[in-house]
């Protein structure tokens, strides 16, 4: 679906189209939306929307060296998930699913919802500021990045992180697989997320 105007409602569809249709196995996609903080008179990227697809195979993931979260850490994650669930569905709601293991990548995705980046800082902020994609493939590249978000991602078992700038923000993708740069994917992002481009109208 290509429209000329930015449309919050179609963000989810666009993120799904991007990674469900990809040949590579992406774990999640996030759209960081550009806004201006009136108080600080500064541009920043905040949560626009996100799509968590999940990992292909949990057993395969654990072989890759991502150590499982400790019992205390799991309890903490479940507690937060329970609180978030009651925030969404009401305090009386019960959901057995919140008592299931919260995987590292699920947790990383959830924590991302609380984050924002000043233009020029962090991986999404850099991509937006320079208008150049950032593609980090391989745990070593993530671990040695100057950006905390990339290092954090590696700690949660992600092996590839990509930030592709568009007119209104940045599309970030993450995977527990090592995925090398793909022109096809970058073209897809340009088509799906280049809002307000008169040529696409």
């Amino acid at each position: 679906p290509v429209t000329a105007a930015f449309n919050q409602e179609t963000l989810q569809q666009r993120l799904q189209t991007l990674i469900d249709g990809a040949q590579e196995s992406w774990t999640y996609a996030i759209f960081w939306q550009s806004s201006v903080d009136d108080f600080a008179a500064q541009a920043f990227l905040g949560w626009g929307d996100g799509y968590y697809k999940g990992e292909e195979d949990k057993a395969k993931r654990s072989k890759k060296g991502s150590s499982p979260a400790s019992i205390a850490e799991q309890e903490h994650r479940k507690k937060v998930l329970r609180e978030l669930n009651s925030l969404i569905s009401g305090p009386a709601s019960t959901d057995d699913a919140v008592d299931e293991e919260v995987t590292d990548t699920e947790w990383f995705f959830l924590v991302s919802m609380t984050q924002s980046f000043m233009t020029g800082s962090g991986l999404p902020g850099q991509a937006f500021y320079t208008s150049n994609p950032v593609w980090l493939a391989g745990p070593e590249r993530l671990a040695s990045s100057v950006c905390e978000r990339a290092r954090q991602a590696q700690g949660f078992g992600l092996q590839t992180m990509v930030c592709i700038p568009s007119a209104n923000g940045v599309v970030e993708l993450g995977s527990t697989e090592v995925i090398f740069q793909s022109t096809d994917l970058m073209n897809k992002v340009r088509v799906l997320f280049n809002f307000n481009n008169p040529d696409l109208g």
Partner: protein
Amino acid sequence: DGDLPLQRRKSLQRFLEKRRSRLVMVSPYGS
């Protein structure tokens, strides 16, 4: 604190629903 911006609330709701359905599919007791 209960003050969750609308877009994050929507994203979170989708995430929780999808997680629920994924776990139901995996669990032998889910159906």
